């Protein structure tokens, strides 16, 4: 047997090109006759565009063209759409405002593009963009939900009165109200989920080439889902029909959700390439990334949880107001609804849950999925409420959770989801042991002797991944199916190519997917090549997000491998004159069990392609495809325990210990999975303590660079203790649940619960910066002084 199969810590196949500087990212590509695009962006959050004077720019050296939104719409380029329809409580559809890739008459956020300059060099394009004179009639603006919903607030889209996009609900309101009325204890909290900028380290980039002779377009772009990009660019934006458009996402430097969407810049580069008959490249600066990459989170909620006299949860009621920015991005509507409120039962047995959600336009960049997408918002809400409730009830927060855990599966929650597996108490126990919770009082006392406040916080998260069963999401409003595809090509010499609709932008698919094949056919991973990210090479696929590439993408590969295995056995049985049932695949050979009769794996490949001696009626070749549509979501879950020390004089908080016990189902490569958890936790710590995308009241972005937006750095975070306590997912052939988002989902509440434990004040919002922590400490001191 090879030692490269399921469960092996195989070093990554893709690493060599990255550590030697030979990765090929979109900005590394230079096409012959390439020009550069620079966008003219609105400096105003809300304004009517009175005029655009490009004459000075057009006269500048190297300028090929200056193009505007009227030309774009005049050429039939369609408006940008949201692909998930949400219906309001009253049955009305969501109010989707028009979004043109280049604004025509009105701009709605700072960074909204009104024109593009195409020039011979990047510097020439940028200089000319600055010379385009745009006259604006500036309008009042609004940047947060509490301001945008007020009477008299500026109206952002004509078809969305009060800036309301939809008013949606889930669960049973009357029953939840009735249950809460009987509660022995109620915990009510106002909880905000801070706005974030995703910040993959590779900025977005596009290189578009129109080939006039073939009437064909090629787009290199930083995408997590190149086929979805091609579909949307064709079907909705009318750039080109699908068979005349090739989309390639080569090496992509991180995504975290921000590279799911098809942005104005990609549409404009394609169109401008046709207009100028040149290749057109655009690469975002980091400043542009802060202004234009879809942001994440930005919820304001009120939640009430009720308990009976034995501390069992009787009901949970939540109202959430979500800021979706100036336009509805591709999956924006699904994030604060079906990806969020369906997880509000948490790991707990709650008979009654009700949530209603209002979403609003503001004059800010669109908000959409960012690592976790809705599920971090749910976990943060429920886990902060649980911890606070335990403090109010005077019980151990771990034990309050334990007594309310779901323990029987399948478990139908009141908010759609049917949990299929899990051992929540097992994760709690494993994390408690690893974190030495029993030793915490001694550590707290020792910290106190040094003048430090030490605190401990739990988070027992659950998420819905393996996104998603197509019919189920279709019934909830999704405009696409969320299956995945795969093709397995065994070459005549026995090497294997796997074509997958998933896309790797850091997740290590080239290794993990090869391990799956290695496990199945007992072949070394170097004989297996993973092909992804090119619509000309790979069959239609849905891409990578929502922790789906293991549970859905690899399940598709597994199905295709089933077909290949069956054919291999048929060929070998025929050639070796044995029964198919006696054929085994092992050690690079295809053998007849219990005999010395065998063919080399490569000989079976060759037999399939020479076709000299195949079973009667069998087609030549050895290539099989499969589409896999999941039957349910998967439910990764776990327990995170964070321990902090706070300096009461300054509010400076140090994470001194962070322990994770996750249930991801089957794990293919523990090394890669642990890496995903480390990165996810760090993004969660960033959200909890550092990161905040801030607009002023007039809609100017205040956190527009790494000078102002605080990214976690190496000396901000600790080493992590990560372990796995897994139950097998019954819903897919590999038993996988997904691991990509867990860290970012589970960690923020653990951090805030630890800090609030340390300082003795539950009134603390993310990001818990030193000044906020210090202020919260002062609030407690003032209250004590007043007593």
């Amino acid at each position: 047997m090879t030692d490269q199969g399921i469960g092996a810590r195989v070093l990554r196949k893709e690493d060599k090109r990255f550590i030697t500087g030979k990765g090929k990212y979109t900005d590394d590509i230079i096409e012959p006759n390439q020009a550069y695009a620079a966008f003219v962006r609105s400096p105003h959050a809300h304004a009517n565009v009175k005029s655009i004077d490009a004459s000075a720019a057009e006269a500048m050296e190297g300028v090929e063209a200056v193009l505007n939104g009227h030309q774009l719409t005049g050429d039939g380029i369609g408006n940008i759409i949201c692909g998930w329809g949400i219906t309001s409580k009253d049955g009305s559809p969501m109010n989707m405002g028009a979004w043109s890739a280049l604004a025509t008459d009105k701009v709605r956020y700072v960074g909204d593009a009104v024109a593009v300059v195409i020039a011979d060099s990047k510097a020439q394009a940028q200089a000319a963009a600055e010379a385009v004179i745009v006259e604006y009639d500036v309008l009042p603006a609004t940047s947060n939900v509490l301001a945008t919903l007020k009477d008299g607030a500026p109206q952002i889209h004509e078809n969305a009165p009060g800036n309301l996009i939809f008013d949606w609900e889930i669960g049973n309101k009357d029953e939840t109200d009735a249950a809460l009325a009987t509660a022995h204890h109620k915990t009510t909290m106002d909880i905000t989920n801070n706005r974030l900028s995703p910040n993959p380290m590779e900025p977005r980039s596009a290189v578009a080439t129109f080939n006039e002779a073939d009437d064909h377009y090629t787009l290199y772009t930083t995408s997590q889902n190149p086929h979805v990009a091609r579909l949307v660019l064709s079907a909705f934006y009318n750039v080109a029909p699908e068979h005349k458009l090739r989309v390639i996402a080569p090496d992509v430097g991180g995504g975290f959700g921000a590279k799911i969407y098809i942005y104005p810049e990609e549409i404009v580069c394609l169109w401008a390439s046709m207009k100028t008959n040149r290749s057109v490249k655009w690469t975002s600066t980091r400043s542009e990334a802060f202004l234009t990459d879809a942001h994440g989170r930005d919820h304001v909620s009120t939640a009430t949880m009720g308990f009976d006299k034995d501390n069992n949860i009787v009901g949970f009621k939540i109202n959430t107001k979500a800021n979706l920015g100036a336009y509805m991005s591709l999956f924006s509507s699904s994030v604060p609804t079906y990806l969020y409120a369906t997880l509000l039962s948490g790991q707990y047995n709650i008979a009654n849950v009700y949530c209603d959600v209002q979403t609003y336009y503001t004059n800010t960049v669109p908000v959409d999925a960012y690592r976790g997408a809705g599920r971090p918002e749910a976990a943060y809400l429920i886990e902060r409420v649980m911890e606070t409730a335990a403090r109010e009830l005077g019980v151990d927060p771990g034990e309050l959770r334990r007594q309310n855990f779901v323990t029987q599966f399948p478990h139908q929650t009141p908010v759609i989801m049917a949990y299929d597996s899990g051992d929540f108490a097992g994760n709690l126990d494993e994390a408690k042991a690893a974190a030495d919770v029993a030793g915490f009082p001694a550590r707290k006392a020792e910290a106190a002797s040094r003048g430090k406040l030490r605190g401990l916080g739990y988070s027992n998260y659950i998420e819905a991944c393996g996104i998603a069963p197509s019919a189920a999401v279709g019934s909830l409003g999704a405009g696409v199916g969320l299956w995945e595809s795969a093709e397995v090509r065994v070459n005549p010499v026995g090497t294997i190519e796997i074509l997958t609709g998933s896309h790797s932008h850091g997740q290590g698919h080239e290794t993990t997917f090869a391990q799956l094949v290695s496990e199945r056919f007992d072949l070394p991973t170097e004989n297996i090549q993973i092909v992804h990210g090119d619509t000309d090479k790979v069959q239609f696929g849905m891409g990578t997000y929502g922790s789906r590439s293991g549970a859905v993408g690899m399940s598709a590969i597994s199905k295709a491998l089933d077909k290949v295995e069956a054919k291999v056995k048929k060929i070998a049985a025929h050639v070796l004159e044995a029964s198919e049932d006696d054929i085994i695949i092992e050690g690079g050979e295809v053998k007849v069990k219990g005999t010395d009769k065998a063919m080399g794996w490569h000989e079976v490949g060759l037999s399939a392609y020479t076709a000299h001696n195949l079973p009667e009626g069998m087609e030549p070749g050895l290539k099989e495809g499969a589409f896999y549509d999941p039957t349910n979501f998967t439910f990764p879950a776990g327990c995170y325990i964070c321990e902090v020390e706070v300096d009461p004089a300054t509010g400076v908080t140090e994470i001194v210990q962070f322990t994770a016990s996750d249930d991801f189902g089957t794990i293919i490569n523990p090394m890669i999975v642990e890496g995903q958890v480390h990165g996810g936790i760090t993004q969660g710590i960033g959200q909890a303590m550092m990161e905040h995308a801030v607009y002023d009241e007039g809609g100017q972005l205040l956190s527009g660079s790494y000078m102002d937006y605080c990214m976690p750095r190496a000396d901000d975070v600790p080493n992590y203790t990560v372990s796995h306590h897994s139950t097998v997912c019954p819903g897919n052939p590999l038993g996988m649940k997904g691991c990509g988002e867990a860290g970012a989902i589970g960690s923020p509440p653990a951090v805030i619960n630890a800090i609030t434990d340390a300082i003795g004040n539950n009134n603390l919002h993310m990001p818990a910066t030193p000044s906020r922590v210090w202020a919260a400490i002062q609030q407690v001191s003032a209250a004590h002084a007043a007593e």
Partner: protein
Amino acid sequence: MTKISMTVNGKARSVDVPDNTLLVDYIRENLRLTGTHVGCDTSQCGACVVHVDGQAVKSCTMLAAAAQGAEVTTIEGVAAGKDDLHPMQTAFKENHGLQCGFCTPGMIMTATDMVKRYKEAGKTLDEDAIREELEGNICRCTGYHNIVKSIADGASKMA
């Protein structure tokens, strides 16, 4: 336009470029050495770190003209030979110190520089020191856990 000459990865290079050309653009656009990356525009992220006359430099913060006559090493030039890996490159692979790979060249160039400086100063490069020395390099994928391990391992491999 000015003719800017320097030695890059042991090779003499000479290119006519506009006077305001940044070293990173000279390396990426003119020499087509695209392993050096640009992740921000405020000299914060460190994806563009190269060595200029033996010192780690953010190449987005230096004019190409300022490197006239210098010896420059980029990620493509750190290994001893064509088929070799630098011990720090090996350490990043063996410790899973990278995911998307975009920050990795800058991390490795920063790491080799820090190991050299600590060695020359006779100081111990422990975990706290590594974390502090990485202040100028941002990674969004790994959470730094395995980068810190990689650098510690690379340092011992370089010893």
